[in-house]
């Protein structure tokens, strides 16, 4: 990855987002963009269609445990053409954990968004099939939130009946 292409890409992103690019973190190996919630859908579309970030690797949820903008969702994008990764971060509020889905842009966002929903309770608007992916639907908590105890809430998941004739 030569620096010229990289600078070009970053320049394109800056131009597209303008003032909405809240932060561009270049301290780590890969750039990390922080953008506002309302721009996420069109930015993702722009990144995929114009800058060839065709491969959505994963969607990461995290709990910052702060009073405002408690959760963050990070989109991990790969450009196979330019051999480069990009991380796009949005902050989500605890009171209203809602984000527009990107599963209409990348099909692979489907399960990743379900995973974030399962672990943090962040709902994705317009998701075709927003169910819990790992835990059963009957479970009412979101385990990766920091207040959830490691050993779980007793009785929140049912144990099988040990008398054989249940039906």
């Amino acid at each position, binding site marked *: 990855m030569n620096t010229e292409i990289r600078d070009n890409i970053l320049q394109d992103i800056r131009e597209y987002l303008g003032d909405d690019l809240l932060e561009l973190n270049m301290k780590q190996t890969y750039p990390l963009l922080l953008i506002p919630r309302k721009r996420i859908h069109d930015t993702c579309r722009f990144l995929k269609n114009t800058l060839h970030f065709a491969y959505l690797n*994963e969607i990461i949820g995290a709990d910052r445990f702060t009073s405002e903008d408690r959760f963050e969702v990070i989109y991990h994008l790969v450009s196979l053409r330019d051999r480069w990764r990009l991380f796009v971060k949005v902050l989500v509020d605890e009171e209203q954990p809602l984000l527009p889905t990107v599963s209409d842009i990348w099909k*692979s966002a489907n399960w990743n968004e379900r995973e974030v929903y399962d672990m943090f309770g962040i709902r994705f608007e317009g998701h075709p099939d927003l169910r819990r992916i790992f835990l059963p639907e*009957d479970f009412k908590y979101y385990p990766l939130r920091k207040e959830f105890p490691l050993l779980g809430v007793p009785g929140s998941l049912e144990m099988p009946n040990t008398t054989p004739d249940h039906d």
Partner: protein
Amino acid sequence: MELEKKISRKKPTYFREHQEALYKSLEDKHATVEVDKSDPLTTRMTLNMGPQHPATHGVLRVLMELDGEVITKCRLDTGYLHRGIEKMAENKTYQEFMPYTDRMDYISPYSNNVALCMAVERIAGIEIPERASYIRMICCELARISSHLLWLGTMIMDAGALSYFLWTFREREKIYDIFDEVTGHRFTVSHSRIGGVNNDFTPAAVEKIRKFIREFPDELKGWHKTLDRNRIFVDRNSGVGAIDHEEAIAIGLAGPSLRATGIAYDIRTFEPYLHYADMDFVVPTRTEGDNLARYYCRMEEMAESVRIIEQCFDKMPEKGPIRVDDAKKSYPSKDEVYYSMEGLIHDFMMTDTGVCPPAGAESYHAIEAPKGELGFYIQSDGTGHPWRLKINSPSFSNLQGLETILDGEMVADTVVLIGGMDPVMGDSDK
């Protein structure tokens, strides 16, 4: 029809809401195969495969709606192995968390160890000694061979030839022996350490590895001989689950499944880690994207792995440290611990607090595990525990693709397709 419905929709007895949501989601799914609805004979059957089923490689549950033997639509239900490994990671030091990575993709634990170590090393800024990185590479490639061997055995066993499974297992036993000698355990090795590896190769281990890579190509040739021109095997796999490269990227396949569609996305060449940049090897790709292409990709990868191990032995320094000599970053050697006060204190501190990356740092590092890209995204808060550790597991991506691929195939194909995708539920369920 009413009776059919009654039989197939028996009331679930446990996790009621979950089951109902799952069945409803199956009904809601847009079918990719158009079936003529006017024919009164097309009665549908919902077949539940798993979570305990011989071909689902663990505890995957496949819920499918059948038209005769053709799957019109299907849903995968995962999470039967979900134990909350990411939650546990937040409560462990980085080094303590390593044994858990062994149990993620339990077919190739060494790769997972290396992936975690390298992610932590990147975020904490640790450079590992040269000999250690060669040891890691050799063991990673052995793990790749061992993983692909299990894939080969189980996939052909699912297709009906049981003996291949035992033949490949015989070869796997040899790799287990090597790991037993190198690390002290058959397959949950936990051999890699942050800042190096636990112990050096013994001469016996080197001898065993050399013997293995000498003999293994012949075995590989034998399998090629019995399978490449086997009509039943080829007919069952060619054209089954075919997918083109654009679709493959869109549904986010990883590893050999993606490479079988023609995308040479291999982290070893995409952004080389360890010493893969110095190695001479090719990334096998195919363009068909079907199950047979996945077979060829994996088979050729095994041959490439042998070549990489040979080159590693050529380039590996004869002697040298195997761990960073910096007690703030890695465990001191056992000699130091037993015979010096400082060593003992450092050892204690490493176990108690461990490596502390700078506060607020976020970093990602991926390696090419046998199943695809395995990455760890770590957010640090300055303590020895990760604030958030996200595992990007290849099986998860591949299973997601499987849900699309299975539509329109036959029941008999599900087993070879699941085998060909090679998911490991411990990896995908986290």
